[in-house]
């Protein structure tokens, strides 16, 4: 087979995967296992979301970059363990959340996730790829005053638009508890932002 033929086949495969919906991609992954082109498609589809998710949790660009890279390495390593019981996006988000938590624990082994980490707000002010929107930055700083559980639920719901059902699967928490956490988080953030204004 010539190089041109191989490239043409590769292009058609890439295009085919691009046209698949998320559910079809999950079925493809479960039925035929992961291939390089399938992995690249998963990577391209979720890379930005995962980076921003990690960035919201970790605040620092370098940490978010590390966590995102480790996330996709684990996706590649454990792709064959994906059983299709949950949505593919939920699975990838869950790995990213675990990676972020691991990174936080590595940076600060004595961290208490039930407590807020206001000192992390310093990481936001001067870092790469900030949007420059003042109110968005204030919101990010306000997030540092939330316990990690509420922060996670808020970012997944508010920024990533995940449903409560997805977040419940992702965090192994009941939807009721998630709603309560989200409610608490929103109220606290509103107070904080109104004070800052």
């Amino acid at each position, binding site marked *: 087979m010539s190089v041109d033929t191989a490239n043409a086949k590769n292009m058609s495969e890439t295009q085919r995967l691009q046209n698949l919906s998320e559910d079809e991609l999950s079925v493809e992954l479960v039925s035929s296992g992961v291939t390089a082109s399938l992995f690249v498609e998963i990577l391209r589809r979720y890379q930005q979301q995962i980076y921003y998710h990690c960035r919201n949790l970790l605040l620092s660009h370098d940490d978010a970059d590390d966590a995102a890279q480790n996330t996709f390495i684990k996706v590649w390593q454990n792709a064959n363990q994906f059983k299709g019981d949950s949505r593919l996006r939920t699975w990838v988000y869950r790995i990213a959340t675990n990676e972020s938590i691991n990174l936080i624990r590595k940076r600060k082994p004595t961290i208490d996730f039930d407590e807020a980490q206001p000192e992390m707000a310093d990481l936001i002010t001067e870092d790469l790829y900030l949007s420059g929107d003042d109110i968005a930055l204030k919101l990010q700083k306000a997030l540092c005053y939330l316990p990690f559980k509420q922060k996670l639920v808020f970012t997944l719901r508010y920024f990533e638009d995940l449903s409560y059902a997805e977040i419940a699967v992702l965090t192994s928490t009941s939807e009721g508890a998630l709603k309560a956490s989200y409610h608490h988080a929103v109220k606290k953030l509103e107070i904080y932002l109104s004070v800052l*204004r």
Partner: protein
Amino acid sequence: MDLENEKIGPAYNAPESYFKESESRLLQRLGIDINSPEASAPKIEAIKPVEVLMKVDTSGIQKRARKQDPLTSKSVGVDKDVDSVGKVEIAPLTFTTNENPEWVNFSAISEETTGLGDSLNITKVTYGDLLNPVVESVQIESVQRESVQRESVQIESVESGIVSTVIEVETAIEEVVAEEVVLETEVAEPQEDFVVESIVEEESITPDSIVVHEVPEFVGLDELESYIAPINAPKAPIIEEVIAEEEPQTINLEAPPTAFAPIAGRQKESATPGWLGIAASLAAIVAAYFIWNAIQPPKAEEAMATELQQDEPTLIESPLDEPISPKDTIPDGLQLVEPLIMGEMPKYKEPNVYTIIDAKEMPPRTKRALQDLEDNGLATFDMEDEMFEELDFESL
């Protein structure tokens, strides 16, 4: 401010170039070639640790190991980090003297060694050589040695024209044993006769070989001195005779077991028994306690009266003129801005959130009732179920 109605955008905005660079970096890290679509997951084996024997530069570890364990001169299990890299086995050191050949304590070599013959094999072994068991060997040959016979061996090549040459190779990393390696060399012109001179030594007068090991720089004079002292002693050096009879005898001046223990060993034993020190410490503490109590200023009578009054339970009277502050609590994490928030707190209304600890054990009817309440917006239930303890993506 209503967060849910006024949507605030993300605070981060990474450029497209970053994601492309990140993608290529990741693919490179995983060894994935985009052009080969059929590449499958097993390629990940490339980044898994491979359990093979590998050579590691253990020179530093040997130094540390010997420093830490002078009695055994072994470093096995000392550096766990390196040991975990692969199956690294570090040969025990047979330490003798300093790296500078001029510092070799020739006088320390016993007469049993020097008296046997005038020909000595002095082998300099460095730490690098321990990894590469090829050691340069210097043979010092005495002219006055009568017992060494020089024989001219004339070898006539018959048909193949192969001439044997004796080359002495010593390996230092295992036992200090001289080996004879016979190399066969093909001669281009088999018609010529070759005369090869070789040193043929009798069994009884095999020249001795002394192994001189290199010493790390951090060895101080006192440590060296402590080594030399036992060497100068008549029976201190341990001489290892080479087993092979026809090979040059190699003597290993192994360090005495306590070569590097002088610092601990030299400490003079205290004449005072240990219990006296403990008793003195206790006495000092008791004395300090009494002195501290003695120098405290006497309490005023009023202060003592106040203390006595405080011991008795009293009713706290709330002054009527003070405004009653709202009973709202400051949410977790907002304590730093408490003064600012206090002004806003009256506006903050706590939602109807109830914490339920044993949600899993509730009967189904109760759960349905709670669900109805929540669906109708009458209440929100916070199930405490420790979500982070159960995070395990592989279970999905």
